[in-house]
């Protein structure tokens, strides 16, 4: 009897609560967003903000203690030291090269999987593109270390032509990064090409355009937003990478390595160096957002 009554009262409370939530969408929204925003805005953005503020601090060169005095010395040093400038430019160059290479390789592959291969095979081919994404990042870099090592697969393949593999260095880094992020470029292009309405292509052909012209005037403009979406991955993932460079890059230094080597002794400098890829990537994301490509991510 009493348990029934409490159960009924409990149900009543639940009902009232549900009713309140239903009538007050703002309350519902607040409840939905509080926890995630505390996590992302306070914990994550907060930590980032502190890091960027610390970029304006300096370090006591004897004790490596952070001195909390506002100064723009780090950024001044960043812009004037030739080594830093060189590394920043090299990193941006690597990220761009990787993006261009990915786009160039991804296009024929995606064109084949989306429009040339028999429709029956297409889902299987998409799985074949996706599969390496699930394999470990480190294992894939390790695979390239094996391939490019002395006497490895690259040397063995090129030996009959009197050539040898590139060894470890900048080309190896670009190659490995291209391999790593290639699926991120193939997939959006595949999706865009697959969704390309066939009647647009027919219309273009009816109006007298040959394949090349149709490609330039119809296919390419409709696929470019997807290339942009894919480039977000290829570009930003390459720009921040420092592990791949350590494994296959030989002595090559990218911006990530500089950040890493400064953390222990000069955290403010590391923070200042870290702002470079962040600023570049945020600008890149904002530019891409204007094209609407982020919706197809």
């Amino acid at each position, binding site marked *: 009897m009493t348990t029934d009554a409490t159960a009924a009262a409990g149900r009543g409370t639940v009902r009232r609560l549900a009713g309140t939530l239903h009538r007050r969408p703002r309350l519902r929204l607040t409840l939905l967003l509080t926890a995630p925003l505390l*996590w*992302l805005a306070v914990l994550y*953005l907060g930590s980032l903000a502190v890091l960027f503020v610390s970029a304006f601090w300096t370090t006591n060169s004897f004790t490596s203690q952070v001195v909390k005095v506002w100064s723009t010395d780090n950024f001044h040093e960043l812009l004037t030291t030739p080594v830093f400038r060189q590394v920043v430019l090299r990193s941006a160059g690597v990220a761009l090269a990787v993006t261009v290479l990915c786009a160039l390789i991804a296009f024929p*592959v995606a064109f084949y999987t989306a429009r040339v291969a028999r429709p029956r095979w297409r889902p299987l081919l998409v799985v074949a593109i996706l599969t390496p994404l699930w*394999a470990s990042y480190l294992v894939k870099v390790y695979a390239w270390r094996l391939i490019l090592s002395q006497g490895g697969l690259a040397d063995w393949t090129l030996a009959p032509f009197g050539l040898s593999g590139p060894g470890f260095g900048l080309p190896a880094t670009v190659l490995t990064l291209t*391999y790593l992020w290639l699926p991120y470029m193939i997939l959006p292009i595949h999706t865009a090409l697959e969704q390309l309405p066939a009647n647009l292509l027919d219309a273009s052909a009816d109006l007298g355009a040959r394949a090349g012209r149709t490609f330039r005037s119809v296919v390419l403009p409709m696929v470019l937003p997807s290339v942009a979406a894919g480039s977000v991955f290829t570009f930003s993932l390459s720009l921040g990478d420092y592990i791949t460079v350590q494994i296959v890059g030989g002595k090559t230094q990218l911006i990530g390595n500089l950040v890493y080597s400064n953390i222990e002794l000069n955290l403010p400098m590391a923070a200042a160096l870290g702002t470079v890829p*962040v600023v570049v990537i945020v600008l890149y994301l904002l530019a891409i957002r204007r094209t609407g490509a982020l919706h197809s991510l």
Partner: protein
Amino acid sequence: MHLSRTARIALRTGAGLGFAVIYVPLLLVLVNSLNPDRSASWPPPGLTWHWWSVAAHNTGARQALWVSVKAGLGATAIALVLGTLIAFAVARHRFFGRDTVSFIVVLPIALPGIVTGIALNSAFSTVLEPLGVGLGLFTVIVGHATFCIVVVFNNVVARLRRTAASYEEAAMDLGATTFRAFADVTFPLVRSALLAGALLAFALSFDEIVVTTFTAGPGIETLPIWIFENMTRPQQAPVVNVVAAVLVLLSVIPIYVAQRLSADTATSSRV
């Protein structure tokens, strides 16, 4: 678009080469785990299972695997809750700053891991250390969860956008409370999206190395960290080879599950 014969053949060859480039390195890792030699020279002088049994008894690798699983499960659990909450807010409500919210969610994965890593590292050491909490497995989980939120969010928000809110409204018109409508209508609709998101989140966490480097306490070694530490030690090379091969083989599991999930969603959307 009518492609000439040559164009078709060129595309076929190009795609074939592309797929070869994608798979040769993975196959090489598998073959190399059977390499009796410690060097990576090609071709291997023979094949042996010897290193597999050596690797099976390697305590370092086994402990690292266990740490990775724990970190992955913890991060996935947090990401599932937070990602789903944001997805519901963004897909079912209109509010000021909605685009900003979706932007902030992507940020942890878009920014370089090293930046996220040192930001969290200095935040943890300034906030947690005075409280007597050092870096450990807990901080790894917090770090991983931060960038795993986005994959859960993406999956759930995509599903919610495709399913009209009218199902929930119909349930409520029939007398269901908000909670009842969620449990009986909304949840079954997003369940497979949640699973897909969880799978991705776990895979992402399991694979992560950079953020882990900066958030792991002493003695906490995930599998990627273990591989990275041992990769350049010639003595450990055969065991690393085997661990790498195991990871390549393990990646088949999520692919299989993902296929089952998408088949499942295809059938349920046909109903």
